[in-house]
């Protein structure tokens, strides 16, 4: 081991990569010297190449110097110079590196926060070597979506082998996800270093790049077939694209479905949340109480996102992370839309996606108030396309997009609405975080890809990405597929939403919730524009999907729901939404949003829980975009409120959790319990020495 360690360590990039995960370069950050030393040694024992620092600021500096020097970051949560979550966000936004959080405490709240901020994993101290032996999977996951090559899904699957997430879908999803990102921001180098080298775990595999054009074909094919009836094979045939494999389509479909589901679930959630505030799912409640989630309440609704903010929102950084293909396409669109209210732009892309529920769009006519300034306009125009209208839907008309994205923002940074760069998102979404600040400056840097408005979306995407990419899980489950369709249709934003969710559950695509919601959404979305809203509005439906999708009040509701979810995610200042949400959500049925938070929790617990991601996704989609997350509610709040009151108002958490999160909650509970058990004081009061104790041994 010694030799290997040395080799692995010294070779750094080259050596490490060839023998990945041996030599994987880890940056460990912890202010506690003991933990740091132990961690360092454990990592060395796993044959990783370790760099340590006891200061977050130093770590950030090192990462900024050369992001390509590291594959993974492990950071403590409590650090004196900088909050671990903040570091997490920044790293995620700026470098798009997988970050694992470490903490001595296993507070559900903290774990949730970690997830919503984009952590790939959350480990409790003391860290065991067994746990560290598998962390390389997060690197693989993040890199997967990054596909430079052409369509070639099969390879991707293989690369997944290690992580256990197998299946074409996963890889495809990754592809899609990465595609999305790529589409969005050329400069965004999320997988920057990936470009240089393939996924270490596998040889180069060409990936399918789901360009806007391709996605458009996809969506139209799906629409032609009907979301529910759309099967990869048929879609493939309809699309008639050379080099595209069934697997590619399958995984993309999965994502799409998830996306749609998320959109719808967000809306539902919001509705539900309102209704079930605090009653249903304790977990939701919990979630609500979580940082990010609390804000949901405040979210008034999709409309919250002030159009101004929306337009100015520079998705850039935020969106950068969006990986999901849907998000990608959407992102592109949203960004276009949002950025400068280039409705046209938005329209086009969105149209490409298929039909964005017209209803949604038109409903959200109020471009102004809605989150995305630019988007609203376009969204409305897009109205046909439900998919992209995530936002539209959510906002009920105003900023369909905005909220879609907003949902993501829940994480706090989602300040989707590009609202004048104030992505409230600050709260938690690492992705968003950057975007917020960046927005103003268009810090494309952080977000890279996303255009302003998209910013919001991008946020969503991020989460989505995470989920999508990382956990092809949900894709694999095939749940996404349905969702994607609808999601995509919703609007470009949805992608954001998706991302958002993704962020949350870094790999846990809220498969359950999302899928359900998405599928639900999709099915509804596919129908006429108005349908979308209606479908979405069905709180009942939403509920099905794990209770996430709160189809709440059609257009409005839907958005709300989604919004709600997002809200939850953002947690932050969402309170505004709450007020609004209630109104719009009359349906208040299943607030999807609830699931969001839940999911996060679950995600934490169950790595594979995709539900959470759903939420994030939804959140984003549901035009929550309420950037307020960060408390910036300002722009968004007003906007979103008007439109999607319900979206944000309700605490989806509560409502939704019930259904969908059940499992998640259980998982979480069990996790927490086990942790608690471990901590059970074992003081045996045996302070003295036994006969054979020290005395005897010396």
């Amino acid at each position: 081991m010694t030799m290997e360690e040395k080799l692995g360590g010294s070779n750094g990039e080259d050596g490490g990569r060839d023998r990945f995960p041996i030599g994987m370069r880890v940056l460990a950050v912890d202010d506690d010297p003991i933990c740091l030393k132990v961690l360092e040694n454990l990592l060395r024992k796993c044959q990783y190449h370790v760099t340590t620092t006891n200061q977050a600021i130093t770590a950030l500096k090192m990462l900024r110097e050369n992001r390509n020097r590291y594959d993974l970051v492990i950071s403590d949560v409590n650090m004196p110079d900088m909050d671990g979550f903040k570091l997490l966000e920044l790293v995620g936004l700026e470098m798009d590196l997988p970050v694992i959080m470490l903490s001595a405490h296993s507070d559900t709240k903290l774990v949730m926060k970690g997830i919503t901020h984009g952590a790939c994993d959350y480990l409790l101290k003391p860290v065991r070597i067994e746990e560290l032996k598998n962390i390389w999977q997060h690197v693989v996951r993040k890199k997967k979506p990054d596909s430079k090559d052409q369509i070639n899904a099969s390879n991707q699957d293989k690369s997944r082998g290690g992580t256990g997430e197998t299946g074409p879908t996963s890889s495809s999803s990754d592809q899609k996800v990465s595609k999305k990102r790529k589409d969005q921001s050329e400069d965004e180098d999320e997988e920057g270093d990936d470009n240089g080298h393939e996924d270490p775990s596998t040889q180069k595999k060409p990936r399918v790049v789901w360009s806007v054009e391709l996605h458009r074909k996809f969506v139209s094919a799906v629409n032609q077939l009907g979301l529910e009836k759309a099967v990869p094979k048929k879609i493939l045939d309809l699309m008639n694209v050379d080099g595209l494999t069934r697997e590619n389509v399958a995984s993309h479909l999965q994502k799409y479905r998830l996306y749609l589901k998320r959109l719808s679930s967000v809306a539902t959630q919001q509705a539900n949340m309102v209704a079930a505030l605090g009653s249903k799912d304790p977990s939701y409640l919990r979630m609500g109480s979580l940082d990010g989630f609390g804000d949901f309440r405040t979210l008034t609704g999709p409309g919250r996102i002030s159009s101004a903010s929306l337009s100015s929102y520079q998705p850039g950084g935020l969106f950068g992370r969006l990986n999901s293909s849907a998000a990608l396409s959407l992102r592109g669109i949203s960004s276009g839309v949002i950025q400068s209210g280039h409705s046209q732009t938005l329209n086009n892309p969105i149209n490409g996606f298929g039909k964005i529920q017209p209803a949604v769009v038109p409903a959200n006519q109020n471009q102004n108030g809605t989150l995305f300034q630019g988007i609203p306009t376009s969204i409305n125009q897009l109205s046909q396309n439900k998919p992209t209208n995530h936002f539209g839907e959510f906002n009920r008309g105003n900023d369909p997009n905005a909220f879609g994205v907003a949902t993501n923002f829940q994480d706090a940074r989602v300040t989707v609405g590009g609202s004048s760069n104030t992505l409230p998102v600050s709260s938690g979404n690492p992705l968003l975080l950057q975007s917020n600040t960046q927005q103003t400056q268009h810090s494309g840097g952080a977000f890279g890809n996303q255009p302003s408005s998209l910013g919001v979306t991008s946020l969503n995407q991020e989460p989505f990405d995470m989920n999508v990419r990382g956990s092809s899980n949900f894709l694999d489950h095939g749940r996404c597929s349905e969702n994607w369709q609808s999601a995509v249709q919703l609007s470009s934003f949805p992608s954001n939403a998706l991302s958002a969710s993704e962020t949350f559950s870094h790999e846990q695509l809220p498969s359950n919730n999302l899928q359900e919601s998405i599928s639900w959404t999709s099915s509804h979305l596919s129908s006429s524009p108005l349908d979308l809203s209606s479908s979405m509005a069905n709180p009942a439906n939403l509920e099905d999907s794990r209770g996430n999708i709160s189809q709440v009040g059609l257009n409005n509701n839907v958005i709300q729901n989604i919004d709600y979810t997002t809200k939850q995610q953002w947690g932050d200042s969402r309170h505004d939404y709450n007020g609004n949400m209630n109104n719009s959500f009359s349906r208040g049925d299943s607030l999807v949003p609830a699931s969001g938070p839940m999911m996060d929790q679950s995600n934490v617990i169950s790595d594979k829980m995709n539900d959470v991601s759903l939420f994030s996704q939804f959140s984003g989609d549901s035009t929550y975009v309420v950037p307020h997350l960060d408390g910036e509610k300002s722009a968004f709040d007003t906007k979103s409120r008007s439109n999607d009151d319900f979206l944000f108002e309700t605490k989806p958490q509560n409502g939704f959790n019930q259904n969908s999160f059940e499992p998640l909650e259980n998982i979480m509970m069990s996790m927490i319990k086990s942790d608690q058990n471990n901590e059970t004081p074992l003081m045996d009061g045996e302070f003295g020495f036994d006969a054979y104790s020290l005395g005897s041994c010396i």
Partner: protein
Amino acid sequence: MWHGIDMCSLVYSFAFVPCACEHQGIVDDQFTQLRKLEDENSPHFVMEVASLFFEDCEKLINNMAIALEQKQGVDFKQIDECIHQLKGSSSSIGAMRVKNACIAFRSFSDGQNREGCLRCLQQLSHEYSLLKNKLQTLFRLEKQIVAAGGSIPRVH
């Protein structure tokens, strides 16, 4: 070099001390895992980590004692931070009892109960001393073995 019985007993004790410690709950499996990490590359890993821990722990205990003494008001937030850090480091090194003492301590600190905190701090100090004592014994043995020409038995 080998001093016959002396070496044997040294080695025996060396093996025994950790066992006894674990049995008494002073250390847990994490400590054993750390010992396993020792190898030719890092032969004194456990000792180094333990030294760091002793230093850190003493400093934290001291800080908490001072904080609890403040007449104008106890800064429970600071105490909570200290506890948190101590909990993290003690669990990382496998100091189970110390860790458990931290857990108990936390609830008192959360409740802003000064008296309770003082008691906990005392308990914590006690556990720490116990641990330090044992570990230093272990390290001493280790040194003796090495000095006597023997090699440290590794944990596998």
